[in-house]
C-alpha cells in the first residue's frame, strides 16, 4: 500500500466515526424540528414517529401569532447583543491582567473569582434580586445587561487560561520597543486570543439568548418579555402546545446555528506564533 492509500483509508475511517457520533448528537435536534412540523395528534404517538404526516408548515405561522413574536425577538436581541458586548469588552482585559500582569492581591482576587462560582446561584438569587430592587432596576432589562460589563467569572477564568498559554516573549519584545501595556494588550495579545474571545462571546450570546431565570425575575412588564419566557407560555395543564413550542424553539436556535456555522472557523482555527515572531 502506498501512502495515499493509507491516507484515504484513514480519512474514510474518520468519516465513519464522525457519522456515527453525529447520528447520536443529531437526535434531539431532529426530534425538535420534526415535532415542530407535526399535527398535534401525532406528537405523542407511540412508538414515536419521526416523519410528520402531514407536514404542518403552518405551525410556524401559528406559533408566531400565539405570542407577540417580533416584539419578544427584538427584546431578546437587544439584551443579547448588549450583554455579549459587555462580556467581550471586559472579560479579556481582566483575564489578561490575571494572566500576564503582576500585581499585589492578584492571586487573592483570582481565588475569589473562582470561589464565587462555587456557591449555587439558588442561594444568591434572592440577595441579588434585593440589590437590584434597591437600585431600582427591577422591571428593567438592566440586571440582565449591566453586570456583564463588569465581568463574568466563568469567562475570565477561561480567557486567563488562554492568555497563560501565550508566550511571554512576544509581550516582552513589544515592551522593549516601548509599547504601553494597553497597546501590547490591544495590538498583540488580544488578536492572539481572538479564538478564545470569540468562543466566550458565543457562550454569552447563547446564555443571554436562552436565559430564563433572569428575565423571569426582572422583567415585570409583559411587553418587555423575551422569547425564552414566551416558550413557557406554550405549556399548560390541559395539554401543552408541543408543536408550536418546538416551532419557536427551532426558530430560536436557527440564528445561533447560522452564526456558529460561519464563525467557527474564526474561533476554532489555530494561529501560528511562528509568523508573528518572525
Amino acid at each position: 500500500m502506498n501512502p495515499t492509500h493509507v491516507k484515504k483509508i484513514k480519512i474514510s475511517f474518520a468519516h465513519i466515526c464522525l457519522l456515527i457520533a453525529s447520528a447520536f448528537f443529531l437526535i434531539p435536534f431532529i426530534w425538535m424540528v420534526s415535532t415542530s412540523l407535526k399535527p398535534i395528534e401525532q406528537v405523542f404517538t407511540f412508538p414515536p414517529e419521526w416523519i410528520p404526516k402531514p407536514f404542518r408548515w403552518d405551525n410556524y405561522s401559528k406559533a408566531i401569532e400565539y405570542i407577540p413574536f417580533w416584539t419578544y425577538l427584538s427584546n431578546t436581541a437587544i439584551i443579547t447583543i448588549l450583554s455579549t458586548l459587555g462580556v467581550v469588552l471586559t472579560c479579556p482585559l481582566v483575564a489578561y491582567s490575571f494572566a500576564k500582569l503582576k500585581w499585589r492581591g492578584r492571586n487573592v482576587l483570582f481565588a475569589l473569582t473562582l470561589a464565587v462560582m462555587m456557591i449555587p446561584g439558588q442561594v444568591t438569587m434572592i440577595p441579588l434580586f434585593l440589590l437590584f430592587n434597591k437600585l431600582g432596576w427591577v422591571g428593567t432589562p438592566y440586571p440582565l445587561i449591566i453586570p456583564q460589563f463588569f465581568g463574568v467569572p466563568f469567562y475570565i477564568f477561561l480567557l486567563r487560561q488562554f492568555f497563560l498559554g501565550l508566550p511571554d516573549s512576544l509581550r516582552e519584545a513589544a515592551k522593549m520597543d516601548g509599547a504601553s501595556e494597553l497597546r501590547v494588550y490591544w495590538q498583540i495579545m488580544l488578536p492572539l486570543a481572538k479564538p478564545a474571545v470569540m468562543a466566550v462571546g458565543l457562550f454569552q450570546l447563547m446564555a443571554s439568548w436562552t436565559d430564563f431565570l433572569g428575565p423571569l425575575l426582572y422583567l415585570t412588564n409583559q411587553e418587555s418579555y423575551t422569547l425564552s419566557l414566551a416558550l413557557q407560555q406554550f405549556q399548560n395543564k390541559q395539554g401543552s402546545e408541543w408543536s408550536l413550542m418546538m416551532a419557536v424553539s427551532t426558530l430560536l436556535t436557527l440564528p445561533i446555528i447560522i452564526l456558529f456555522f460561519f464563525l467557527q472557523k474564526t474561533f476554532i482555527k489555530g494561529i501560528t506564533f511562528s509568523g508573528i515572531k518572525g
Partner: protein
Amino acid sequence: MKALEKLNLKQQQVLIVKSKKSNINSGATGWLFASPWIIGLVLFYLLPLVVSIYYSFTSYSILRPGEFIGLQNYKELLVDPLFLKSIYNTVYFAVFYVPLSIICGVALAMMLNMKIKGMTIYRTIFFLPTLVPHVAIAVLWMWLLNPGFGLVNGFLDMIGIKGPAWLGSETWSKPSLIFMSLWGIGQSVVIYLAGLGDISSEYYEAAEVDGANWFQKTFHITLPLLTPVIFFNLVMGIIGAFQQFTLPYTLTQGQGKPANSLTFYVMYLYDNGFKYFRMGYASAMAWVLFVVIMVLTLLIFWSSKRWVHYQGK
C-alpha cells in the same frame, strides 16, 4: 519530546532578555485592567455571597428575616437522611460524569480538529444538542429510554440483550442521567477546539522531522499542551457536576424519582429554600457545598503544577 525541548530552548533565550521595569509598572496597570471586575465582583458576587453566609446562621425564610440560630442549621444537616442521600447521588454523578466528559470531550475535539471535508458541518452537529430546550431534552430521553418501546432497548433487543428500566430503575437512573448529560458537552468541545487551535504547528512540524507517529504526537504534544484547557474544564466540570440541577429537576418534576435516586444536592437545596421556606437551611447547604468544591479545587490547583503545561512558560 526532543522537538519540544528545542522549541522551549528557543523561547527561553528570548525570555532571558527580560526588563524588570515592566514588572513594576504592571502593578498599577494590573489593578486598572482588573478594576471593572473588582467592582463587579464585590457588587454582584461577593455582596450576595456574604449575605448568604449570614443567612446560613439564621432561620431566614425569604419572606421573613428569621432569627439568628447559630450553628443549628449545620447541626441539623448532619442528621438529615435526605441530605446525606443527596450527597451520595451528587458525588456518584460527579465521579463518573467529570472524567467521562473530559475523555469524550477531548476525543471529540481531536476528531473535529482533523482536516477533512465537511468538518464545519460535523462541528455544528456536535454543538446542536446544547441549543435544544431542557424540557424537550427531558421528554425526548424519556422516550428513548422507555423500557418497553424506547429506541435504546429496541436496539439492545436486536443484539440479544434485555435492557434495564433505565430511568425507572434505582440502579440505572443515575447512569442514564450521566449518559444524557454527555449530550451537552458541545460547549466544552468548543473550548477544547479553541485550545487545540492555539497549539503552534511548529511543534508538529518539528515532531514530524523527528519521525514521530500519531500516538507520540498525541501524547507528547497535543495532550500536554491542551492541559491548560483540560484544567479549566476539570475545575468547571466539578463545579457544574456538584451543582447539577435543571435536567434532573425537569425530568422528575422535582421529585428525584425513583426512590430519591435522582435527588441531587442542589435539588434538595432548592426545595428547602423555595418550597419549605427554609432559606437559612438552604444557605447552610450551599456553604457546605462550597467547602467541598473549594477543597477539590485546591487539590486540583496544587496538583496542576505537575501536569499543566503552559506554552507561555
